[in-house]
C-alpha cells in the first residue's frame, strides 16, 4: 500500500466539479479507492453467477458476452420487485440537499460521490431503457446508453457508498441511496463483480458460520482465550457454553467481537455480565455471526446468511435470542430477518429472567439488543456498578449508521453508558443521532487496499471526534458496532490521534462489581485502573 499523505494534505479537498459534464467524464479507477476483486472460490461457495478470477485494474473484466442483457433484465426484475427503486428512479428533483451530507463527498469532493449523482449513474440507464421521455429525448431527459464505461463507473461508485442512509434523512422525498446502491450491487453481482472483502467473509459465514471463518473448535477456543484474561483481571472464570440445547437464551454477536481488538474487550464485557447474572444462555458455533456481509451483496445471500439464527434457536430449543453490539446486524434484525426467515413462532417474547421485563417491542422477532437488556437491568438496579473505574476515560458517543437510521437506537446505549462512565460529552448536534456520520468503512468497505477512500470518508466523523477531543479532552469514542470498532480505530488514529475506540460493554465490564471478584487493578485491556497506576 502506498504511503498515506499527512492529514493536512488529505484534507485539502477540491470541491470544484470537472469541466466536462459527468456523462462525458468516465470514472478513473484510482488505486486506494477501490477494493480487490472477489475470489472465484467465494462466489462458487455461495452459488453466485459468473465466478472467475479477474481484476478491476485490468481492461478486460472477463464479462460474459451477454452482460448488458443480464444487467438490463436484472434491473427490470428489480423495478418490479421494489417499489422503493421504482419511486426513487422517478421522483428525484436534483435539489442537491443530499450532496454535502455524504461523508464520501465531503472527503473527496468528487461529484459522483454526491448521493444524487451516484443515483443518477443508475437512473440515467433506467431512463434510457424504461421511460418514454428517456427513449425519445435521450440526453435532454438525462438518459444515456449502457456501456462498459458505465458498468465500471457503477462498480467504482457503488463500492464507494457505505449504505449509511444519511442522505435519506435530508432528502425531501426520503430517497435512500442505500436502496439504490443495494440494487446496483445486486446487478453487479449478476456479473460476478463483487469485492473480496465482502465475498470472503460472506462465503466463510455461509460455510463455517461466521465472517472470520473460525471453525467450531477455533471459535470456542477464541472465547476461552478471553477467560484466562478475565480470570487474571477479576479472579473469576466465567463458564460459557456452546451449542447447548435447552438453554433459555441464544446469544449471537458479530464474530469481530471474538477476534479483533478492541471488540474483544467488549466480548469480555458480555462474558462478565452474563456470568454475574448467572444467565442461562449459550453461544452457537453454527450461528456464530450476527453481522451479515450478504446484506452488502444481495438480498438473496443476506437471507441465506441470516437463516442460521432462527434455525439454530429452533434446534437448540431456546426461548429467545439476545444480540450483541453491531450496526448493520441490527438493521437486518429489525427490518429484514422476520420477513426473510420468520415467523419465529417457536420462540417466546423475550423476557428478562432477572427483572421480569417483557420486551414487547420485539414481540415478533423475539430478539433483543444487549443494550436494551442491560439498560433494563440497570433501571431495576440489578447491577452493582463502580463507574469510577472508567474515570480515566473521557467518552464521546458515536451513533452507528444502521442502528441510528434503520432502528432509532439512541437512548438505550446512552442510558447504559451514563451509568458506567462519569465523563461523557456529546459531539456536535449535526453529527450525532439520526444525523450521525459513517465511520467511512461500512457496508464491507473496511479493506486495506482502499485505505485512501476510507480515510477520506472517515474524515467527517473523525473531525467531530477531534473537536470534542480538543474541547473537552475526550480520549475515547464509544459505539455499538463491530465495524466501527475496527474502522474507527484506523480513521481516528489518523485524523484525531490519541483518541481510542471502545464498545459499550467493555465499559460495562469495567464498571461491573462482581460477586466474589478480587480487587481489580487493571481494566479489561490490562491497563491500570484509575488510582492503580502507581502499583504497576
Amino acid at each position: 500500500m502506498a504511503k498515506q499523505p499527512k492529514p493536512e494534505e488529505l484534507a485539502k479537498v477540491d470541491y470544484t466539479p470537472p469541466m466536462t459534464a459527468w456523462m462525458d467524464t468516465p470514472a478513473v479507477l484510482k488505486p486506494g479507492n477501490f477494493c480487490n476483486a472477489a475470489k472465484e472460490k467465494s462466489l462458487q461457495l455461495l452459488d453466485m453467477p459468473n465466478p472467475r478470477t479477474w481484476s478491476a485494474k485490468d481492461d478486460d473484466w472477463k464479462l460474459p458476452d451477454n452482460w448488458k442483457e443480464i444487467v438490463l433484465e436484472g434491473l427490470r426484475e428489480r423495478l418490479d420487485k421494489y417499489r422503493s427503486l421504482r419511486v426513487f428512479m422517478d421522483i428525484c428533483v436534483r435539489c442537491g440537499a443530499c450532496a454535502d451530507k455524504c461523508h464520501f463527498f465531503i472527503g473527496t469532493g468528487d461529484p459522483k460521490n454526491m448521493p444524487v449523482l451516484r443515483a443518477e449513474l443508475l437512473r440515467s440507464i433506467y431512463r434510457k431503457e424504461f421511460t418514454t421521455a428517456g427513449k425519445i429525448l435521450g440526453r435532454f431527459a438525462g438518459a444515456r446508453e449502457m456501456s462498459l464505461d458505465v458498468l465500471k463507473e457503477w462498480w467504482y461508485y457503488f463500492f464507494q457508498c457505505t449504505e449509511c442512509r444519511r442522505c435519506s434523512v435530508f432528502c425531501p422525498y426520503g430517497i435512500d441511496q442505500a436502496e439504490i446502491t443495494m440494487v446496483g450491487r445486486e446487478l453487479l453481482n449478476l456479473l460476478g463483480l463483487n469485492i473480496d472483502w465482502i465475498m470472503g467473509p460472506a462465503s466463510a459465514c455461509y460455510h463455517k458460520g461466521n465472517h472470520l471463518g473460525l471453525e467450531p473448535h477455533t471459535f470456542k477456543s477464541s472465547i476461552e482465550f478471553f477467560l484466562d484474561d478475565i480470570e487474571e483481571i477479576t479472579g473469576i472464570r466465567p463458564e460459557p457454553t456452546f451449542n447447548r440445547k435447552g438453554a433459555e437464551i441464544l446469544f449471537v454477536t458479530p464474530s469481530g467481537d471474538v477476534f479483533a481488538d478492541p471488540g474483544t474487550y467488549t466480548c469480555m464485557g458480555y462474558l462478565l455480565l452474563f456470568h454475574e447474572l448467572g444467565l442461562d444462555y449459550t453461544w452457537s458455533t453454527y450461528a456464530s455471526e450476527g453481522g451479515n456481509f450478504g446484506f452488502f451483496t444481495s438480498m438473496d445471500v443476506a437471507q441465506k446468511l441470516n437463516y442460521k439464527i432462527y434455525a439454530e434457536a429452533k434446534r437448540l430449543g431456546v426461548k429467545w435470542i439476545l444480540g450483541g453490539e453491531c450496526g448493520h446486524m441490527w438493521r437486518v434484525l429489525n427490518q429484514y430477518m422476520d420477513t426473510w426467515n420468520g415467523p419465529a413462532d417457536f420462540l417466546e417474547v423475550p423476557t428478562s429472567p432477572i427483572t421480569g421485563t417483557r420486551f414487547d417491542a420485539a414481540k415478533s422477532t423475539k430478539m433483543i439488543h444487549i443494550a436494551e437488556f442491560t439498560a433494563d437491568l440497570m433501571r431495576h438496579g440489578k447491577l452493582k456498578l463502580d463507574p469510577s473505574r472508567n474515570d480515566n476515560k473521557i467518552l464521546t458517543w458515536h451513533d452507528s449508521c444502521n442502528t441510528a437510521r434503520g432502528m432509532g437506537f439512541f437512548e438505550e446505549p446512552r442510558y447504559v453508558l451514563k451509568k458506567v462512565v462519569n465523563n461523557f460529552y456529546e459531539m456536535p448536534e449535526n453529527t450525532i443521532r439520526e444525523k450521525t456520520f459513517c465511520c467511512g468503512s461500512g457496508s464491507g468497505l473496511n479493506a486495506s487496499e482502499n485505505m485512501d477512500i476510507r480515510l477520506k470518508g472517515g474524515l467527517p466523523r473523525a473531525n467531530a471526534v477531534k473537536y470534542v477531543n480538543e474541547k473537552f479532552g475526550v480520549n475515547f469514542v464509544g459505539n455499538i458496532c463491530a465495524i466501527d470498532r475496527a474502522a474507527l480505530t484506523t480513521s481516528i488514529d489518523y485524523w484525531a490521534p490519541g483518541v481510542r475506540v471502545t464498545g459499550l460493554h467493555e465499559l460495562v465490564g469495567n464498571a461491573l462489581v462482581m460477586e466474589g471478584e478480587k480487587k481489580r487493578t487493571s481494566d479489561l485491556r490490562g491497563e491500570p485502573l484509575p488510582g492503580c497506576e502507581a502499583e504497576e
Partner: protein
Amino acid sequence: MGAIMSFVGVLALVLIAILGAKANLHLVFGVLFPYAAVLTLLIGLTVRVVRWAKSPVPFRIPTTCGQQKSLPWIKHSRIENPTTIWGVLVRMFFEVFLFRSLFRNTKIEMHKGPHLAQGSSKWLWMAGLAFHWSFLIILIRHLRFFTEEVPFAVSVTEYLDSFLQIGVPLLYMTDLVILGAITFLYFRRVIIPQVSYISLPADYFPLVLIFSIAGSGVLMRYFTKTHIVGVKAYTMSLVSLRPMMSMPEGVGTIFWVHLFLVCVLFVYFPWSKLVHMAGVFMSPTRNMANNSRIVRHVNPWQTKYKGRTYVDYENDFREKMISVGVPVEKQESESAEPAAEKE
C-alpha cells in the same frame, strides 16, 4: 446549457401560442389542447401511480429519525420514528406540508485544520416552501374560474392572500412570492457549482415554464387587465363540456399564452420529475411504520430458504466439534453425504 436551452424552449412555446392567437386557431388552442392536456395529466399521473403501486414493498425500510419504541420508560419519538399508522400520518403531514426533511438541511465548510464546520442552511427549504405554497394558493384561487358560484374557501383564500390591500386590483402576495421563489431556485441551480453540475435541462425547464405561466398571469391581472368576465365565460364553457367556438372579445393574446403554457405543463407533468408530487406519498422510507420487530412484515415474493442447514455444518465439522467438547447431534461421522457446498 440546460439553463439557456430552457429559455429558448419556453420562448418557442410562447411564440407558438402567439401565432395561434394571431391565426385565431381557437378550436386547437382553446378547445383541443386544454381537454387533451387535462386528460394527459389525469391519465398520465394515474398510470404512473399505478405502476409504482404495482411494485410491492418487500421490506419494511423506514428511515428512522428519532428514538425507537422500546422500553416503556424510554421516551419514544412517535413522529420521527413512528410505530403506528397515526404516527406515520403525522410524519407524512410534516413532510408534505412543511418539508420536514429539507428543514434539517445543513451546509458544510472545510476550514484549515482540518476543521469541518456544519451550519444550518434553511434557504432551500424556505424557497421551496414559498414556491410550493404559493403555487397551491394560486391554484385554489383559480377555482373561481371553474365554479359557477365562487366557493367560500376560495373567497377566504383570496381575502387572505390580498390582505395587504395594495393597489387595484388588489395585489396577491403569492404572485410576488412565486416569482421571487422561482427566481431564487433558478439562480441557485445556475450558481452553486455542485447543483449546476447535476442539473439537467429537465430541471431548468419546469422552472422557466412555471415562471412564464405566473408571469403571464401577473401581466393579465395587473397590467393588461384582461377581460375577466370573458375568461370566466370561456373556462365555464370548458367545464360544462359545451366549449365556446371562439374566444370572447377582449380576452387578449396573453391569455392565449397563459393557457397554452398551462397545457404544456399539464402534458409535461406525468413524464417528468414533477411526479414527485404524487411520489412523495409513496416513498417507503417515509410512509412506513418502524414496527417490524413488533409485527411481521410479509414480502409477497419472498421464497423460503433451505440450504446450509445445521446438519450440513455438523457433517463438515463433527470431529472438530467432538474434539473440543461441543455437543453434536450424531456421534460418529457415518454420513458420507456430500454436505457443505450445496448441490
